[in-house]
């Protein structure tokens, strides 16, 4: 919103104030100012000039040769304006004058000397009218500086509309002026209004049928309006504040809106006999004054003339009842409509107007009467013949409750942490329009109606009013009463950090972030589609979203595909969220999930897989000091390999899966690469209690290593050897490790090393041989035999 300081000055005398500083304070105390423009600063030396004569330029078909009387002399001017003619008075820039970016110099135009320039309103920056040079009142004295006639000089600042969301009172200059009054301590002037002077009994017939959406409807009929053009000061203000001048009545409604924040609408009086406010019974079509046909739904509030719709309440009037050139009679609407209804309707139609933007903010219904009287006042000043032909009819359907807030200084002290005097509290609130009664340091304040629609309702709100005017820059700042004791990192975060460090530092992996929803297009590229899951309800904006992912790999597989040429081998990981369908209570089952994706064109799938297993083992060992256990399982996603998908458990808790890719998916991602996927449920992992490791003094006696090469039949896993040996509980067997694996056809040759040692003595080879025999016997029962050298 644009704010004119000239306009503000109508209501609060800011003479002697540093305006720039004041606007800066406004940012700190009220709302963010986005920019300041100094209007008229680049306009200088433009005076009233009378065109004494106008002849055609001998060498041009459109230029004229003028003689202009500028008060101090007569100047030869070459001018191309179509309306240049003898007898008119215009804005004349003499040599040396400044017109926007142009410094006026004496020049020759097609051989003719020109000492000055006649200006259009656009060139002076007070309108966008560039159809011709300005035509001024003939009574003006030649040579008078234009700035003495029109308020060209002004300071316009723009306030971020978003920062006014909660301040319906600031959507007009009068409310803004109230802020400046409070900031400077100067009085706010009363708004000049004029009572309706009609003395008969006629009223505009108003029937508010929908009492939910219409809070108040105030209307009056005015006739004999002969003025067509609004005065220049008004046009300039409207233009500076971003609105184009149209005609007197339209300009007046805009002017009232910019002044009070109360939208008003002027209907052509000849088109309106009886105002009805209601929603349509069925969906209808309606043409707004911008010429567009709109679809109106049954929850849109409309204004009717009897049964004929004439306006969309609070948004825009209709084409048929618009003020036109010969309108001399008007029915003025000053109304208050429900903010949510207006916002939803405007949104539905995609038609947000200055009026709807204001209604959305829940403006004060008390303003409608003020607005009507202000309209009458301004119109009567401009057009003396205009007459109210009815009384003002005021249908006040819904009042906001009056709000009174009690508090004391001690509360303010405690909430602010500083000491603001009772006197200052009182004065601040009074200047903002609160009715304050106080008894020493106890206050009882009545919230003004324009702040009571939603903005202020409790003590904390009052504190804001006091402190923002006091100025946050003036606050003494201090630490809290209770001491600061450093907090400890949670186990949850520590595990996350350890995992990330391990993956980045020991496994050279790259952390990525992916979206929580599956992307159908990306999945299609690798022959997949999103799995059935919880859906997003899509907004009206265009989005590529839809189904939440069940597995991190719905995001990771496309990502591996996208990066397949980044390097011949890489690993990516993320701790993100996956959604495992819907729980019984109809809520989404969200899990914190670690995904690790490994890709390689350099190694075989098998060695990549074992690197992944090593990674998991290292991770689990580091976090929990136990061993991970793997168990082959069936696939739960089409892209998993039926033979190489395993569940990972730790201390009996299932924590995740590891798998290679189904050949069909793998082929789509890479013809000659391998991919291994790991997914860990981080909360399941967190729930596993870490085992405390125990220190064991190394034996002082030499041990004996015993190597065995075993034949492992198909379908027997290495863990079988481990389990069987462990079951024997041989006290002196300290460790069993694998030192070599050789894959022969069907049967795997595996060389294990058994480490024997005792804490009490040196073992004899006989003792060890006895244990080995025991082990071999046990393994033989599992069909695991010792390889016999040929």
């Amino acid at each position: 919103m644009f704010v004119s300081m000239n306009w503000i000055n109508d209501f609060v005398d800011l003479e002697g104030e540093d305006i720039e500083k004041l606007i800066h304070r406004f940012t700190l105390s009220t709302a963010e100012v986005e920019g300041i423009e100094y209007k008229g600063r680049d306009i200088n030396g433009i005076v009233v000039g009378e065109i004494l004569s106008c002849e055609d330029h001998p060498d041009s078909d459109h230029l004229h040769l003028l003689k202009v009387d500028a008060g101090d002399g007569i100047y030869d001017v070459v001018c191309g304006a179509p309306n240049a003619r003898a007898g008119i008075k215009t804005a004349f820039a003499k040599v040396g004058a400044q017109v926007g970016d142009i410094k006026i110099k004496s020049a020759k135009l097609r051989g003719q000397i020109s000492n000055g320039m006649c200006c259009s309103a656009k060139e002076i920056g007070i309108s966008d009218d560039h159809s011709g040079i300005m035509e001024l009142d003939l009574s003006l004295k030649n040579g008078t500086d234009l700035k003495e006639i029109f308020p060209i000089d002004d300071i316009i600042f723009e306030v971020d509309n978003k920062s006014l969301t909660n301040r319906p009172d600031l959507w007009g200059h009068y409310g803004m002026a109230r802020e400046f009054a409070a900031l400077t301590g100067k009085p706010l002037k009363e708004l000049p209004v004029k009572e309706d002077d009609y003395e008969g009994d006629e009223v505009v017939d108003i029937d508010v049928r929908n009492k939910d959406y219409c809070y108040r409807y105030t209307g009056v009929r005015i006739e004999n309006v002969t003025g067509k053009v609004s005065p220049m000061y008004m046009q300039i203000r409207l233009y500076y504040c971003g609105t184009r001048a149209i005609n007197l009545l339209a300009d007046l409604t805009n002017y009232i809106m910019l002044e009070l924040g109360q939208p008003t609408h002027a209907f052509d009086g000849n088109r309106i006999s009886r105002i009805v406010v209601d929603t349509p019974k069925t969906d209808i079509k309606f043409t707004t004054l911008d010429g567009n046909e709109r679809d109106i739904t049954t929850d849109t509030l409309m204004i009717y003339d009897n049964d004929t719709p004439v306006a969309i309440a609070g948004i825009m009037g209709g084409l048929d009842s618009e003020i036109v050139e010969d309108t001399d009679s008007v029915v003025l609407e000053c109304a208050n409509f429900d903010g949510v209804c207006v916002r939803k309707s405007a949104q539905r139609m995609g038609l947000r107007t200055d009026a709807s933007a204001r209604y959305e903010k829940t403006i004060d219904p008390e303003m409608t009467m003020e607005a009507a009287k202000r309209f009458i006042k301004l119109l009567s000043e401009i057009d003396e013949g205009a007459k109210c032909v009815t009384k003002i009819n005021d249908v006040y359907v819904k009042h906001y409750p009056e709000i009174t807030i009690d508090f004391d200084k001690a509360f303010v002290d405690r909430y602010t942490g500083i000491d603001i005097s009772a006197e200052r509290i009182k004065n601040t609130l009074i200047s903002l329009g609160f009715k304050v009664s106080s008894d020493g340091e106890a206050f009882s304040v009545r919230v003004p109606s324009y702040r009571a629609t939603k903005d202020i309702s409790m003590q904390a709100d009052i504190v804001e009013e006091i402190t923002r005017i006091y100025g946050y820059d003036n606050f003494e700042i201090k630490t809290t009463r209770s001491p600061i004791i450093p907090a400890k990192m949670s186990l949850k975060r520590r595990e996350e950090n350890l995992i990330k460090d391990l993956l980045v530092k020991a496994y050279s992996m790259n952390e990525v972030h992916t979206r929580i929803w599956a992307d159908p297009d990306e999945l299609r590229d690798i022959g997949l589609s999103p799995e059935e899951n919880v859906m997003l309800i899509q907004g009206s904006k265009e989005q590529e979203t839809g189904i939440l992912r069940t597995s991190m790999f719905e995001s990771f597989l496309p990502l591996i595909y996208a990066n397949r040429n980044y390097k011949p081998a890489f690993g990516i990981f993320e701790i993100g969220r996956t959604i495992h369908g819907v729980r019984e209570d109809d809520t989404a089952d969200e899990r914190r999930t670690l995904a690790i994706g490994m890709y390689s064109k350099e190694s075989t799938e098998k060695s990549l897989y074992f690197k992944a297993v090593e990674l998991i083992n290292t991770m689990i060992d580091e976090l929990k000091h136990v061993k991970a256990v793997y168990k082959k399982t069936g696939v739960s996603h089409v892209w998993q390999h039926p033979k190489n998908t395993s569940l990972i458990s730790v201390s009996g808790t299932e924590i995740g899966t590891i798998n290679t890719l189904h050949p069909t998916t793998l082929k789509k991602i890479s013809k000659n690469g391998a991919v291994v996927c790991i997914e860990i449920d981080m909360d399941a992992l967190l729930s596993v209690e870490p085992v405390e490791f125990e220190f064991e003094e190394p034996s002082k006696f030499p041990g004996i290593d015993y190597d065995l090469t075993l034949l492992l039949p198909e379908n027997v896993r290495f863990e079988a050897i481990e389990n069987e040996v462990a079951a024997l509980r041989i006290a002196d067997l300290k460790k069993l490790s694998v030192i070599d694996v050789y894959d022969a056809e069907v049967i795997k040759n595996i060389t294990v090393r058994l480490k024997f040692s005792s804490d009490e003595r040196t073992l004899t080879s006989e003792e060890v041989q006895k244990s080995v025999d025991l082990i071999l016997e046990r393994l033989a029962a599992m069909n695991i035999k010792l390889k016999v050298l040929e």
Partner: protein
Amino acid sequence: MKEMIQKLKSQFETKLKDVNDQKSLEDLRLDFLSKKGQITQLMKELSKVPNEQKKEAGQLINSFKQEVLERYEGKKEQLISLQEKLLIDGAESYDDSMPTGCPCGSYHPITLVQRELEDIFESMGFDVEDYNEIVDDYHCFEALNIPKYHPARDMQDTYYLTTKNQLLKSHTSAAQNAILKKYGKDLKEKGRPIRAVFPGRCFRNEAIDACHENTFFQMEGIMVDKDISVSNLIYFMKTMLSEVFSKEVTVRLRPGFFPFVEPGFELDIQCLICEGEGCSSCKNSGWLELCPCGMIHPNVLKYGGINTEENPYEYTGFAFGLGLTRLAMMKYGVKDIRTFNSGDLSSLSQFVSR
């Protein structure tokens, strides 16, 4: 005898001069010092010497032997050091300016910024909390005093789900209610102030471009205790931001409206690049809008079980929000917000560590 020794001595000196490797040195040793060597031979000659001269001749031979031995050892040392020198001279001087492979992985930039902030907040007594990405309508809006028809609740801005009243959290504030409830007991029973930060991923239905993302990170913080004041809020914001930027920052507060705080503020810091003079980073204003904050709204504290209807100001507190994604952009000079969720390893692999 004297002559013999003299002769042998000059013979030794001549031969020693020619010694230039281990082998010739060994030959010399064998020639003079071995059991069959010339000095031993000389000893044998001693029997021919008359008895009264034997003592003197013996001494002469011994001192000669001693001298030869010393000369030999000296030469041996000399040869070793010569050999070392040859080895050193012949060695390659390595070019350590040669590029090597770097086996470093990378952290996501958000992780780096988040860790830094978490460290700072933990040192200031804040617990770090984690929260779901899917939340319900109550936690995201109702409990935060956001009224039913508030524009933020429109479908245009928020991703609603097909499940019961659920949505993707549109701001980290959605965790406030749960955290107030989690720590409220300790506050009321043990007088332990609530201090918590909660980073998290947020979602808003926005068209994506270089400056807008539908998936981004925020970090929210709250402090609740008896008598927490606006003055405390400003103090903590200033201290915290000075830590974040590793230098004393100047802050200013101006009114900002958020339904879950009252009063609410927009906190600006003086531009770190131009120090308030005005430059392109701060759009010539000298200030950067950084951190919305405010005193927690009495209704929010009530819904969080901290205060009662009868005593709505028993405990007070402040809350603040930081845009982690925005901070990461500032810190690393990332110009396109899409980089973060791109998964593009040629970009992301650059964030090696802090």
